[in-house]
């Protein structure tokens, strides 16, 4: 009620000198508009930069089996045979910070089409989710192979731009058959160009095929292994490949009892894979994802505490660092610009309010003479400042939105509406009003009515 009355008084007072009110507000309008426009354009730019960096794979984690050694001679990274496709399923199911995961089986060999041949940089047996993990969503032609192709170990593949150029030239590749290590694959899709990675390796020199096909039809080494794998006995029943390559066929012998099984663990076939590619939900959750994956895999592989992992997880630390420092830099830059404009606007408001108090000394004296208390005067002037700032803030938001819309449509810059910036501007505008309006209002409330009435 009291505030309502005071704000009415404040509004009438502002209305009495519209030009001054508008000019005062202009400072805040420009300040807030600058903040909003900067935040939106900056956000857009920052997001564009982050998208670019993360498309290089900053969110990506690589899980390799640990190295093996034989007689003291290490076989090098990734030579273990401990990772399975079920590990991937478990990671996907058990780690909330993991967005996508794909198994990868590597091979190498020659690809032949008609009279041309080419040895691609990499031939990967993988899953459709590989493209999600790599943030490689668009194909320039055709389609990705499907889960069904994986189950059937279909002989289909998608090829990178370099492979397309070398094997097909100008011919359309989709629907044609190429031979990889003398096994015929039908080309179902062509990847969009991605260019070189940070190390300068051509990422388009690539053939992707269902991992089962590569594993069982192309790559001959380590096709299967026999291992009394502790993981296998439990996962055997859920193994999606058990129908394709049943580990237990028609039983020649009567099935062993539980105690017999425990006494004589049967070697079980299981299909190891070369690596699992994982993408974290965001670049910030990478370390959380690593922890979760480690936990899941140690549990699945039954690794006792104190023993080393039988796998390695690698992240793109360099990229992540770039990404983090870039976005921090952008945020700080925007914040500084925002603060400067708001302080300038606020000081403008304070100046005008101080002038206004001096100019309206007689009014203050009169109001006091007819019964206004110090706090009534304080409330009136404070409210005037706050109203100016809030109105300026709202107009500034509209203007800022307008500017960023114009910029995005004329210059084709990416902009992104920033709710926090809008909320912050309103709050800051109000705060600026209170902080910079308080001193003049306090001065006004401390005036002596007799002096004020005599003021010329």
């Amino acid at each position, binding site marked *: *009620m009291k505030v309502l*009355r005071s704000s*009415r*008084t404040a509004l*009438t007072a502002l209305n*009495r*000198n519209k030009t001054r009110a508008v000019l005062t507000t202009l400072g805040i309008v420009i300040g807030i508009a600058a903040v909003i426009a900067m935040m939106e354009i900056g956000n857009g730019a920052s997001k564009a930069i982050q998208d670019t960096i993360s498309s290089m794979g900053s969110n990506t984690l690589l899980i390799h089996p640990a190295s093996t050694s034989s007689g003291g001679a290490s076989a090098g990274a990734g030579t273990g045979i401990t990772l399975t496709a079920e590990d991937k399923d478990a990671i996907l199911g058990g780690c909330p910070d993991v967005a996508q995961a794909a198994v990868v089986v590597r091979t190498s060999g020659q690809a032949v089409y008609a009279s041309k041949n080419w040895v691609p940089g990499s031939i990967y047996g993988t899953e459709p989710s590989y493209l999600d993990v790599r943030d490689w969503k668009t194909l320039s032609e055709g389609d990705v192979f499907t889960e069904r192709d994986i189950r059937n170990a279909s002989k289909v593949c998608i090829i990178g731009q370099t492979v397309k150029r070398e094997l097909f030239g100008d011919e359309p590749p989709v629907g044609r058959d190429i031979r990889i290590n003398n096994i015929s694959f039908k080309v179902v899709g062509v990847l969009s160009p991605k260019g070189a990675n940070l190390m300068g390796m051509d990422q388009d020199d690539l053939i992707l095929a269902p991992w089962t096909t590569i594993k069982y039809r192309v790559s001959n080494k380590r096709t299967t292994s026999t291992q009394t794998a502790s993981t296998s006995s439990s996962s055997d029943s859920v193994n999606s490949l058990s129908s394709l390559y049943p580990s237990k066929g028609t039983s020649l012998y009567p099935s062993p009892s539980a105690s017999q099984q425990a006494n004589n663990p049967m070697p079980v076939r299981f299909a190891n894979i070369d690596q699992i590619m994982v993408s974290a939900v965001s670049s910030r959750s990478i370390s959380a994802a690593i922890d979760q994956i480690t936990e899941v895999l140690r549990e699945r592989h039954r690794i006792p505490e104190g023993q080393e992992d039988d796998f390695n997880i690698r992240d793109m630390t360099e990229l992540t660092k770039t990404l983090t420092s870039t976005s921090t830099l952008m945020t700080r830059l925007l914040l500084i610009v925002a603060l400067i404009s708001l302080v300038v606007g606020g000081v403008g408001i304070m100046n005008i309010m101080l002038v206004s108090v001096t100019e309206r000394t*007689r*009014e203050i*004296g*009169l*109001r*006091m*003479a*007819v*019964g*206004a*208390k*110090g*706090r*009534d005067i304080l409330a009136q002037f404070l409210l005037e400042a706050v109203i100016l700032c809030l109105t300026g803030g709202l107009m500034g938001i509209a203007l800022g939105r307008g500017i960023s819309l114009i910029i995005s449509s004329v210059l084709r810059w990416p902009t992104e509406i920033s709710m926090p910036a809008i909320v912050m501007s309103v709050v800051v505008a109000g705060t600026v009003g209170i902080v910079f309006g308080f001193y003049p209002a306090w001065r006004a409330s401390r005036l002596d*009515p*007799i002096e004020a*009435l005599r003021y010329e």
Partner: protein
Amino acid sequence: MDLIELKNLRKVYHLGELDVPVLNGISMTVSAGEMVSLMGASGSGKSTLMNILGCLDRPSSGQYLLEGRDITALDADEQAEIRNAKIGFVFQNFNLLPRTSALDNVMIPLEYRTTRLSARETREKAEALLEKMGLKDRMHHHPSQLSGGQQQRVAIARSLVNSPSILFADEPTGNLDSRTSREILEMFQQLNEEERITIMLVTHDPEVAAHAGRVIHICDGLIVDGAYCREAGDAA
């Protein structure tokens, strides 16, 4: 009962090391319904006395009873409430807010009432007073569009809007020509006679002072028998 009762009221201004006595023990009474002139040359202390009577200033010593209530003991907020409810001011330079309609000017004291009136009551009250002042068709004019006499009548309406016990008019005709002055003074007399409003005119002009029923002369901070007195003032 006396509306105003002053007992040995003193006021001393402290200008650095120097003490400047302005009021040197003033005792007087004003009854309700009276019209009194406070006369004195400039520097006589009449403005200081009026400021104290109007609750804008505090005496250094002595007692000031308004309607039997000791005003000197009140704090600044309570004084503001008294000014709002009991006292009306009319100034020499009108002190109307510029770029504000006559109506809005009259409504200002109503904003600070302790018991709030509704927007309609506020408006009706102000309109009725302006009508009584003969400014019915000037309500929405700004002060700059009004003549001096009209502006002073708006100011009188403003001083009356909270139905005060006493009206202080500080040189109300100082900025007006003689014809308008007479009109304004007649209006004060009329208000005093018809509405029984207590009025205190502060002036240095004997002609203006003559409009009041009683003239109090102040000289060097004391009430004196004036040479021009129509009636004898109360002795100090």
